[in-house]
């Protein structure tokens, strides 16, 4: 096995915590390089989920009995842990949702419906995931707001000149992805925040691909809203996080109505619970939120700056190896300082779905498709891309396996 030349992480030790990484796929050891879609879960997270159901399962916020109190305490402790993880001053700024998509929809509904009118503008970018496009298109259909799309450069950077040109007196919100799920590009969010705030607009940051991979400090980021998903950072599926700057949630209408989000319900109308409970109608995903704490602990133990260093190392190694393959083109920034560990590429004359099928035969899992970013696919002039994406447990030998399988793919399609 090759030594990890520069990674600060002991990947061998980390891998022992992930039961799934020892399985085989099609007779080969699993090489899991689809981490931008979802990450694998360490034993600690799986155990936390089982432990909750075996010891504390109960509904929260309403029972008087011991289990209800335990479950409520555990659930609320995660809110505080999430706040610490992203540098939020107050845990009441944290709303649990199902995923990033629901968090953005929450803002589009609860903030957008209450504050935006026909003629107002929302500025997005060409590299957004559908989850940061479609909620705003639905909002535009409801109240006539206009969507503008900031452009990107051919090498996958956001054009700040385009952002400055589009953001103006009519702009009420700028909503940008922090790290692109296709290009890997890390956007200069703080710079975008300055432009947005100078125009009196708010900034929403889609952190689905950044919160799992680098330190996030909302106190210095400049964002007004930040959204991300637990399942892309070792946690269970079904848990998303919306963070909102102090005072914003208080000024918003509820998102969904029902149990747990009310204060007093009368026939003629109701009053709402305090934030953040106003935005968590019905029984939430208690077990998965509680297990998410184990994921945050796992990442905190490693340290997010070391997570980032490891990914830069393995991404640089992968990009260098990919570049050596004839007929292979990488989309997105070449400099690993400007990008995360999602690496999209094209093989001349071979469609990504064919690549992915052959790689799967070698146990190598990558993503092939439009990655829920059809605007970006059109901008790049491709129908789809191949994407390998890395996380804390990936090793250089797995990149080697990817490269070998890609060479086999080229052989299958060679005349």
């Amino acid at each position, binding site marked *: 096995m090759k030594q990890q030349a520069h990674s600060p992480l002991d990947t061998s030790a980390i891998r022992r915590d992930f039961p799934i990484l020892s399985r*085989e796929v*099609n*007779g*080969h*050891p699993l090489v899991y390089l689809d981490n931008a879609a979802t990450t694998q879960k360490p034993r600690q997270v799986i155990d936390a989920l089982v432990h909750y159901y075996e010891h504390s399962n109960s509904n929260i916020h309403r029972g008087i009995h011991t289990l209800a109190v335990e479950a409520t305490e555990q659930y609320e402790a995660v809110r505080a842990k999430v706040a610490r993880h992203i540098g939020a001053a107050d845990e009441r700024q944290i709303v649990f949702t199902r995923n990033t998509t629901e968090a953005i929809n929450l803002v589009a509904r609860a903030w957008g419906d209450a504050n935006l009118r026909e003629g107002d503008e929302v500025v997005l970018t060409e590299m957004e995931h559908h989850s940061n496009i479609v909620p705003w298109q639905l909002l535009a259909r409801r109240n006539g707001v206009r969507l503008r799309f900031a452009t990107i450069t051919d090498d996958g950077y956001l054009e700040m000149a385009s952002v400055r040109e589009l953001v103006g007196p009519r702009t009420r919100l700028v909503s940008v992805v922090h790290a692109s799920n296709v290009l890997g590009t890390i956007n200069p969010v703080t710079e975008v925040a300055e432009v947005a705030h100078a125009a009196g607009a708010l900034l929403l940051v889609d952190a689905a691909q950044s919160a799992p991979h680098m330190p996030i400090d909302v106190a210095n980021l400049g964002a007004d809203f930040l959204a991300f998903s637990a399942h892309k950072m070792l946690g269970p599926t079904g848990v998303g996080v919306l963070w909102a700057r102090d005072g914003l949630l208080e000024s918003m209408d509820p998102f969904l109505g029902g149990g747990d989000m009310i204060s007093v319900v009368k026939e003629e109308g109701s009053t709402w619970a305090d934030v953040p409970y106003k935005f968590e109608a019905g029984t939430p995903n208690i077990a998965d939120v509680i297990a998410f704490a184990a994921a945050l602990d796992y990442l905190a133990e490693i340290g997010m700056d070391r997570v980032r260093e490891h990914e830069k190392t393995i991404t640089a190694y992968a990009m260098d190896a990919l570049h050596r393959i004839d007929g292979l083109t990488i989309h997105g920034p070449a400099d690993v300082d400007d990008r995360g560990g999602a690496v999209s590429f094209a093989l001349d*004359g*071979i*469609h*990504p*779905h*064919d690549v992915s*099928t*052959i790689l799967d*035969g*070698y*146990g190598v899992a990558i993503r*092939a*498709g*439009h990655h829920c970013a*059809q605007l970006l*696919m059109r901008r790049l002039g491709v*129908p*789809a891309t191949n994407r390998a994406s890395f996380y804390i447990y990936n090793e250089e*030998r797995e990149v*080697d*396996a990817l490269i*070998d399988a890609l060479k*086999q793919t080229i052989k*299958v*399609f060679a*005349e």
Partner: protein
Amino acid sequence: MSRAPDPVFDDLFREVILDHYRRPRNRGALAGGNRHAEGLNPTCGDEIILDLRLDDGVIGDIAFGGQGCSISQASASMLTERVKGRSVAEANDVQRQVRAMLLEAKEPPAELGDLEALQGVSKFPVRVKCALLCWNVLHEGLNPATVNTKQDTQETL
């Protein structure tokens, strides 16, 4: 890195399929067509466009366009070769036979010819929709009444 044997893709990427993918037949525009149908697999982006010229119930000429993986494009190329010059009824029969081969893993009848090469796709369930796309488009092109009903349904949803 692995001692496991190399996987064999001969079932899926048969030489006939790769040949149609590299050198598609009847690809491009069609002058004087009187039927047009398009299909898209939204999850993967495969796209097939068919233009036909129907002369008295016979497919006088056919051309395809679009983009996508080898399976989707080769299937469309083979489709055009197979149904050109056939009656609508014959084309519908071929379409049903291909569907049965892909979805029910039925042995292809001899008259399917080259299309038999798509048989291996049935062993890759996630790829069946790639091979089927052009046949769905053909069905819509040949039977426009069902298309209209479907579109109406979609619009009311």
